[in-house]
């Protein structure tokens, strides 16, 4: 707890607000999804908010991020435009990807989010390449690749790390180990559950942290990103976490039997937002009034975004070929 006290209060509030916004957007998507107006597969980020928030709070607007199929949290944490994100889920021309990408392909180049790949591990070399561009230009930018535990089963992760270490690239590999690939638990897919230990052989600094502890994520990210920016090379952060919803459903996954209620309850009790709220209250950094203010501001942003999305036009069917080439 002493360590946690050392965090500047405004950073703690920022992290709290960011996580709450990610959570509330997810819940609103889940609420409206059954209306069938968002015709795109939705992969909710509920339970994992501390990771996107703790990492991205350390990034500059022009730092690069590559996301994956479960990308809503990364997009919001990198300060992507919420209106265009929701419009993308509603398949609209005003969407961040002009209705061509959908939920799994969010982008906002104005804040350095250069795209999201739904091929597991697909974004990892892309972030590595963006970091190579930063080295060419000597521009001090850092690149981040977000990916899940499933990506540790793809060769391209190890190929990318090999190159990043070789060239000392400013790239941070953030593995969100939520223990499941769709319905398959990690112990049926990988020998040993510490992914970070597997990459240490490349001489990349690597660690495993509690991905539900936003302060822990923030602190390790702060050091890793700072080092990378100064030319210290890449870093691998494994964040142990849990998605509280099903792979692409608002349910828990307990109903269909691939995980137990007991396991789910255990992780639900480790909610990163409630965790931080407790710390903020204990430090008297937040009270009900302040909390209401934060919630109301978030609710208003969400309302505006959904209204923007619902009232936006669909793409023109005559523009099917538009954007095929740049």
């Amino acid at each position, binding site marked *: 707890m002493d360590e946690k006290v050392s965090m500047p209060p405004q950073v703690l509030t920022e992290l709290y607000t960011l996580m709450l916004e990610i959570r509330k957007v997810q819940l609103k998507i889940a609420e409206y999804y059954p209306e069938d107006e968002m015709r795109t597969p939705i992969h909710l980020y509920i339970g994992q908010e501390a990771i996107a928030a703790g990492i991205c709070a350390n990034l500059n607007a022009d730092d*690069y991020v*590559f996301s994956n199929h479960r990308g809503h949290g990364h997009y919001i944490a990198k300060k992507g435009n919420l209106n265009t994100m929701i419009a993308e889920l509603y398949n609209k021309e005003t*969407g*961040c*990807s*002009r*209705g*061509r*990408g959908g939920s799994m*392909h969010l*982008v*906002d*180049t104005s804040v350095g989010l*250069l*795209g999201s*790949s739904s*091929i597991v591990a*697909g974004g*990892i*070399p*892309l*972030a*590595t*390449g*963006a*970091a*190579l*561009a*930063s080295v*060419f*230009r000597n521009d001090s930018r850092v*690149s981040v690749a977000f990916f899940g535990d499933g990506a540790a089963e793809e*060769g*391209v992760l190890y*190929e*990318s790390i*090999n*190159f990043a270490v*070789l060239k000392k690239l400013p790239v941070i590999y953030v593995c969100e180990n939520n223990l499941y690939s769709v319905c398959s638990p990690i112990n049926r897919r990988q020998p040993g559950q510490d992914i970070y230990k597997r990459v240490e052989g490349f001489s990349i600094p690597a660690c495993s942290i509690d991905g539900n502890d936003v302060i822990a994520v923030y602190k390790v990210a702060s050091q890793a990103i700072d080092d990378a920016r100064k030319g210290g090379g890449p870093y691998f952060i494994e964040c142990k976490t849990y998605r509280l919803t099903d792979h692409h459903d608002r349910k828990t996954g307990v109903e269909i039997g691939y995980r137990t209620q007991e396991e789910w309850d255990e992780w639900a009790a480790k909610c990163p937002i409630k965790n931080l709220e407790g710390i903020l209250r204990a430090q008297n950094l937040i009270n009900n009034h302040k909390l209401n203010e934060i919630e109301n501001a978030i609710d208003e942003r969400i309302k505006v975004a959904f209204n923007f999305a619902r009232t936006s036009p669909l793409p023109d069917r005559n523009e099917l070929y*538009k*954007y*095929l*080439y*740049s």
Partner: protein
Amino acid sequence: MPWTKFIAGNQDYPSEVQEISDDLRKITYSEAIREALDQALAHDERVFIMGQGVDDPGGVFGATLNLHKKYGSIRVFDTPLSENALTGIAIGSALAGMRPFYCHNRPDFLLLTMDQIVNHASKWSYMFGGTAQVPLVIWSVTARGWGSAAQHSQALQGLFMHIPGLKLVMPSTPYDAKGLIISSIADNNPVIILEHRWLFKQTGYVPEEIYSVPLGKGIVRRQGADVTIVAVSYMTMEALRAAEKLASAGISAEVIDLRTLKPLDEEIILNSLQKTGRLVIADTGWKTGGISAEIAAIVSEKGFDFLKKPIKRIACRDVPTPASYILEEEFYPDINDLVSAVMELV
């Protein structure tokens, strides 16, 4: 944009230039490639060259020879094998504003990179509504002969032609090799260039200055009236030899070099066919589901009424490339196959 003036000033020199003027500068095909890369590196600091062996003593058949000495080992660098990740790394650097040129000495290894080429590079512009672009060139050299066999000789243009969002280039002359590389590097999209090893020693006219040959434009290499031979890459050379032989038998063959398969110059094919009414398609790759199949399909959709005879396709036999030279002779199409095909049409 630093490339605009070269693209705007497309020089498209006629194939006859080579024959009419002996005092024009002639260099080899591999020297032309090297010159294009040299000038691109000098012209635009965003351009860099990567690939296994680009700085080795041979310089990928001469194409990258000593460029690392001139531009340094940051901009011209050897890579780990890791072809799939390195392709993604090239794409990522392109998304962040660079113009990578990624060399492979064999297209067979591109099969290890299909995830990054097909799932990522080709889709990024479309999938993100044009907000991001991938100005990437992937360059590779198809081998033939000397027992190169099944995994070191594949001509995979059929696979790449299938994928929306890619551009696909197959030069056949030193002039085009240089000009098409310049166009490909200047292009804001992922471009695959498939070279053919047997073209590297040929010499031809190549201007010293930087210039471009447009993507998506074929060229008539030889005028003719009786039959159209549409060819790509090395098969253009076989087609020109066949046309020469046919001429002595009184048959006038028109030879079209497509130069770019994607976008495909349909107009040049249909215009020629309208004149000749007979079509032979010559490819360096397999027949089934390949580029000759696609071109034949386009012609039957758009030029059926021009056809006096069925279309003939000259392509590799549908088996893996054999090693033994006696079987290689059976596997690869040559001038005799072309001449026989034409003789059956006229």
